[in-house]
């Protein structure tokens, strides 16, 4: 799927590509390869929802996510396990709205599906929505990008969804067993879908990071110019898995978190569609009527932009996964940062 196209001149593309291919890379805004732009995060901004969050990037991109839950009767499942699994996937509905794009646009649908895939990736999320054999919660996750899409909005939407899900609370169940569900009226006693503390075994909400590579360099949180010259763009979804702490000591490092890779999707980098640059001395002189040399000649000239060809190498994908998943790596630090956000 193609990202929104940024119009850049061949000279700019070449400059950006050269500076990002250096070791260490020089990003045009001076960030380190793994450095994110500062962002502002807030939860519980919408009163009428079960959980909501708003995230603003420093470049002005802003997204709001609201999670609403409703009770739905579970259809009687006689036809075995396979059918049940499918029904559970349907319990979550994700809608993505991006200004100036139709909601049935291929790009928007792909974005929504990517977020959905990460959320349902391990098949554990739907279990949290089960009330009893006859009823379940149905979650509507509405993702709204407020600003025009400045760069590929996937990381922004994913971080906002993550925070909104962390802040989502459901009313406390009073009834028992398979009887019609009854809930506690008091919102104060409602329970988090993802309890922050305590014995909360299972997967936490996922985050999807956008990673690009230029040369051998792996670059996180690309700006739109960096995305425009990327050779590979990958959306990597990870989630933290919490395990029941083994009783009786053996606790070595309480801070260590176990990360689980949920999905990797390639995103078509816009650099492949860019026109090549014009080398010195080939500009036509008009009156002489000399035919212009073939621009698509095979030998690349230093300083002239040429769209990257070919696929992603295994070593590059491997390097990306390493950088994301390693202890103290990027995903770890991002989750640390998100843990610091106060839940309203």
């Amino acid at each position, binding site marked *: 799927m193609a990202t929104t196209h940024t119009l850049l001149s061949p000279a700019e593309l070449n400059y950006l590509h050269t500076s990002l291919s250096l070791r260490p890379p020089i990003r045009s805004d001076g960030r380190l390869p793994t450095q994110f732009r500062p*962002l502002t995060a807030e939860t519980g901004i919408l009163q009428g929802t079960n959980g909501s969050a708003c995230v603003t990037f420093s470049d002005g991109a802003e997204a709001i996510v609201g999670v609403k839950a409703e009770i739905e009767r579970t259809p009687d499942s006689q036809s075995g396990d396979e059918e049940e699994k499918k029904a559970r996937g349907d319990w979550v509905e994700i809608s993505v709205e991006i200004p100036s794009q139709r909601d049935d646009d291929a790009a928007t649908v792909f974005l929504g599906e990517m977020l959905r895939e990460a959320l349902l990736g391990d098949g554990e999320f739907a279990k949290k929505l089960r009330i009893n054999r006859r009823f379940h919660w149905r979650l509507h996750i509405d993702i709204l990008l407020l600003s025009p899409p400045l760069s590929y909005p996937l990381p922004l939407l994913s971080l906002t969804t993550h925070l909104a899900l962390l802040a989502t609370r459901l009313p406390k169940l009073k009834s028992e067993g398979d009887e019609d569900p009854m809930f506690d009226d008091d919102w104060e006693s409602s329970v988090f879908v993802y309890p922050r503390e305590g014995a909360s075994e299972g997967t936490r909400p996922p985050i999807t990071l956008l990673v690009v590579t230029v040369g051998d360099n792996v670059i996180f949180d690309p700006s739109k110019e960096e995305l425009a010259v990327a050779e590979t763009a990958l959306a990597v979804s990870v989630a933290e898995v919490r395990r029941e702490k083994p009783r009786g000591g053996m606790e070595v490092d309480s801070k260590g978190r176990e990360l689980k890779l949920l999905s990797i999707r390639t995103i078509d980098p816009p650099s492949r569609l860019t026109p090549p*640059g*014009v080398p010195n001395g080939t*500009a036509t002189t*008009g009156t002489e009527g000399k035919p212009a040399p073939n621009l698509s000649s095979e030998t690349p000239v230093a300083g002239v932009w040429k769209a990257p060809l070919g696929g992603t190498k295994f070593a590059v994908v491997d390097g990306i996964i390493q950088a994301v998943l390693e202890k103290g790596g990027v995903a770890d630090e*991002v989750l640390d940062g998100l843990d610091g956000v*106060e839940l309203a």
Partner: protein
Amino acid sequence: MPITILAPRPAPQRPLSGPAVSGLNSDSDSEMDSDSGGVQIRSAKRRRASADEDEGDEILTPGTIITSNPQWMRGHGTYVLPNTTSITSSLAGTLTKTNKLLSVRPLRARYTPEIGDLVVGRIVEVQAKRWRVDVAASQLAVLQISAINLPGGILRKRTETDELQIRSFFAEGDLVVAEIQQLHQDGAASLHTRSLKYGKLRNGVFVSVSGTGGGSGVVRSKRQVWTLETANAGGNVGVLLGVNGYIWISKHIESDVAAEAAGINRMEESVSSKVYSSQNDDIEPATMREIARMKSVILALVEHGLKVDEDTVTRGYHEAVELGRETPDDDLYLGGEKGKRLAATLTGR
């Protein structure tokens, strides 16, 4: 620390004054009361003081009635409803009073072209005999093929061949530096690049700070183009501030001596075919680092609402070099806390 997550800032505290309407009316009331004697001077002085306080205080939205008192005159950004005397805001912005003239300064505005402005533009469309150029104005500007220097040694007429290969001069996406030659009835601008100073841009990065308004962003000044000797062996870096808020930061290339000597009359002769190539020269990593630093300085200036001109950029750059020495492994990026410190140093001198 690769990620900083900040708590939302509370909305800026505004002093709770009444709406602009009541402020104006009470002012005029007090003036009518104090019709005689020396009191008038005092009240006039007080009004000026209160007007200064009001400035930047209240944000008006389009359609807000500023005052219906006929003693005020309407200025930019306002209109008078037919059959009334109500002065109404036509923009979102703050109220400015100049004696009896009321005008509204917009919070954000597009660039309004003026003849002679130096602008940086991006080609967005190629037509039969002209290019359409994005210059951050409300309409695309036009660059005629007759308004550029054609390559080819001798002074020559443009031919049909030139028109056929119009894309070999500028294609979609190319950045040009040009001057506004002419304004049309509808506010659209015509550009020209008939000087060696103008033409295609190479060897650098582009920054857009257009549409900021409120005193920040690029302002018209004496010098829009200059070269700066950078620290850390970065060599000379050229900065080009387009009046339209598009900025080009590049490695400074010594201009061709022969071309300089040719003078204005034989300028066309020296226009080599190099002018329209998009091949970058060799750029040292050190220069690239300093260009990146310059870009982050400009972004930090805009983020903190400071104006971008030769003085602020130069001082900001030297401050940034000093700041960068404190954290050698992460010395370029000026987002967040560091940018705030930079802005504080620049304003607090």
